[in-house]
């Protein structure tokens, strides 16, 4: 696979690792957060922690849209599917997310709800066209990467006059969440960020500049392949060593400073900012999510079906909030690996294999026993 395999080369990885080991100062710790679940996945799947010196530590951030979706949002989707008899379309990622009353979309489906896994918003439109007598709702989740395809679908539905199609809009924004992590009193013990890969192909590198300027944290945007991650870590180590805080771009093959303007325009045409949105683990974060603009209200399932969002508190024993901020490690949570496992996730970080806890449980838990 061209432009994939080259970025997974083991020998080159060892080279970059040797450079990191050579340049990281033995006397100091480098606490770097990879924001995105895609990076968490690459680090876990390829065992990249083993290529880093012990004083360079990766902290898994909240960049997994499934993990940050609060219980109340999944509840809304389940209510729609069970009580309003809609065809609920969703990306496969969300079907196992635990909701209230020991339910999930998968369990709701087992109980007779019409829940369908789709691979593209085009599939949801097709289902709506093929079932004109049924209401079809798409559970629209994801960061800036996944938002433009939803915008395209909304525009298409409007153009076609597709009246039985609507979305539950749970699209969230990356920079807002990064602010939420950094804007804690006393600051956070993070030395820099590996910045989003595919989110940045859409929004560009510019939105990260305030983190470098205002919080003095270096950001290096990196692709999701293992060599991209390794190179970004090296670039962050260099910035830390030099006392610099700049936005640098390792993923130049897909990311520009301005991003994909066409996609941004589409998103701006269809969506507007929500005043606030509740994130699992982070709580309510201002201006951190999108809703449909009033002229597209006909496609807003929340309004169309009057399913209000009802907040459900996270489990008290769960340390997700501290883990997402990099203040605690997954294994420091009392219920990690006992009450809370990938089969029966309690907290948000255990939900998807890209969550900090699930990634550590599934790929890295041998490290504690060594």
């Amino acid at each position: 696979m061209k432009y994939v395999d080259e970025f997974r080369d083991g020998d080159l990885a060892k080279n970059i690792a040797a450079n990191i080991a050579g340049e990281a100062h033995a006397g100091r710790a480098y606490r770097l957060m990879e924001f995105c679940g895609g990076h968490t996945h690459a680090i876990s799947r390829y065992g990249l922690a083993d290529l880093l010196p012990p004083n360079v530590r990766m902290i898994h951030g909240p960049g997994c849209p499934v993990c940050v979706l609060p219980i109340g949002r999944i509840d809304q989707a389940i209510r729609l599917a069970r009580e309003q008899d809609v065809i609920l379309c969703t990306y496969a990622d969300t079907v196992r997310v635990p909701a209230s009353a020991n339910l999930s979309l998968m369990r709701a489906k087992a109980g007779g709800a019409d829940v369908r896994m789709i691979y593209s918003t085009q599939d949801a439109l097709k289902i709506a066209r093929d079932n004109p007598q049924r209401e079809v709702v798409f559970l629209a989740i994801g960061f800036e990467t996944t938002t433009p395809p939803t915008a395209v679908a909304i525009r298409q539905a409007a153009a076609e006059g597709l009246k039985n199609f609507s979305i539950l809009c749970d699209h969230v924004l990356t920079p807002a969440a990064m602010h939420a992590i950094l804007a804690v009193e006393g600051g956070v013990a993070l030395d820099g960020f590996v910045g989003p890969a595919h989110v940045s192909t859409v929004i560009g590198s510019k939105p990260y500049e305030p983190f470098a300027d205002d919080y003095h944290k270096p950001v290096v945007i990196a692709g999701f392949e293992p060599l991209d991650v390794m190179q970004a870590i090296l670039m962050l180590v260099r910035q830390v060593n030099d006392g610099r805080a700049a936005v640098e771009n390792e993923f130049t093959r897909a990311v520009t400073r301005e991003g994909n303007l066409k996609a941004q325009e589409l998103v701006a045409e269809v969506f507007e900012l929500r005043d606030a949105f509740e994130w699992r683990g982070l709580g309510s974060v201002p201006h951190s999510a999108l809703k449909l603009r009033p002229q597209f209200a006909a496609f807003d399932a929340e309004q169309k079906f009057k399913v209000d969002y009802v907040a459900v508190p996270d489990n008290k024993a769960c340390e997700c909030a501290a883990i997402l901020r990099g203040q605690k490690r997954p294994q420091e949570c009392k219920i990690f690996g006992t009450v809370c496992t990938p089969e029966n996730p309690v907290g948000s970080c255990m939900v998807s294999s890209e969550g900090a806890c699930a990634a550590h449980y599934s790929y890295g838990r041998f490290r504690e026993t060594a």
Partner: protein
Amino acid sequence: MNTVKPNYTRALDLKHGRVDMSHGSGGRAMAQLIAELFAAAFDNEYLAQGNDGALLPQAQGRLVMATDSHVVSPLFFAGGDIGCLSVHGTINDVAVMGAKPLYLSASFILEEGFPLADLNRIVESMAQAARAAGVPIVTGDTKVVEQGKGDGVFITTTGVGVVPDGIHLSGDQARPGDKILLSGSIGDHGMAILSQREGLTFSAPIVSDTAALHGLIAAMLDSGVRLRVLRDPTRGGLATTLNEIARQSGVGMMLHESAIKVNQPVEAACELLGLDPLYVANEGKLVAICAPADADRLLAAMRAHPFGRDAAVIGEVLADAHGFVQMTTRLGGRRVVDWLAGEQLPRIC
């Protein structure tokens, strides 16, 4: 002149006919379906006895029995169909016990309305697979369920075989230091199925690996190597099979990612869908565990057989109280290769 033929029944319409409830009712229609479709295709002396069960000759050795139900969508896929799959799957379950498979039974649950032409194709494919394997289908059963209560056709096959003296294979016999061998590429069957599933619009040159492995296994046993564990990594993929063995034997494992073959289209399809080929189903592969001194000889025996051409040593058994299956990645790091949590679902957004 009397033109009435007292015992005439019009032949089954294998072109346009469909399964209806009468085909499962025990009456004449069912007898006809069995005679014209199943018995005609499977044709062997035991089935020809025409009784409720097959009377089989005395067998030498310990008996092995295995059963497997087959539900697959789509029923026809690149490289095979539910028919040959149901023959191969059960032959393999018997053969990985170290047994020579002798006989199969086949039980069909048909959905009302299922085209007889498709059923005929499936049954022909089963018959051909059984003949090629030298394992006759000696008894069977047919039931029909109402439309909407089945998925076209479900097939359950049961196999019987005999294990020669001196052979004892079991999942609890892996010992620290042992070598783990894999007979070929992984993920081909699962991705062949997925690539043809409705809604997953992609096309790929991926062919199911469905195959009967008793020939390969016989060659491995004939090599004189003492095998400890044999297993076919079907549902749940290689990762699940190895975790089962590790748990049964109370050991850990260290795999080497670079030694595990994944064909490029399979890898690419997995990339597109966010799936891990380690968890994708195989239907013609096996995992073998043997003492380290035997590994070279076993590998040579496997590679000499067409179904083991790409065989490789993929790792070692370790002493590990936690029973972790680990892997050194192609990047040089380490990871756990865990049990599958729930169903493997695409990661997308």
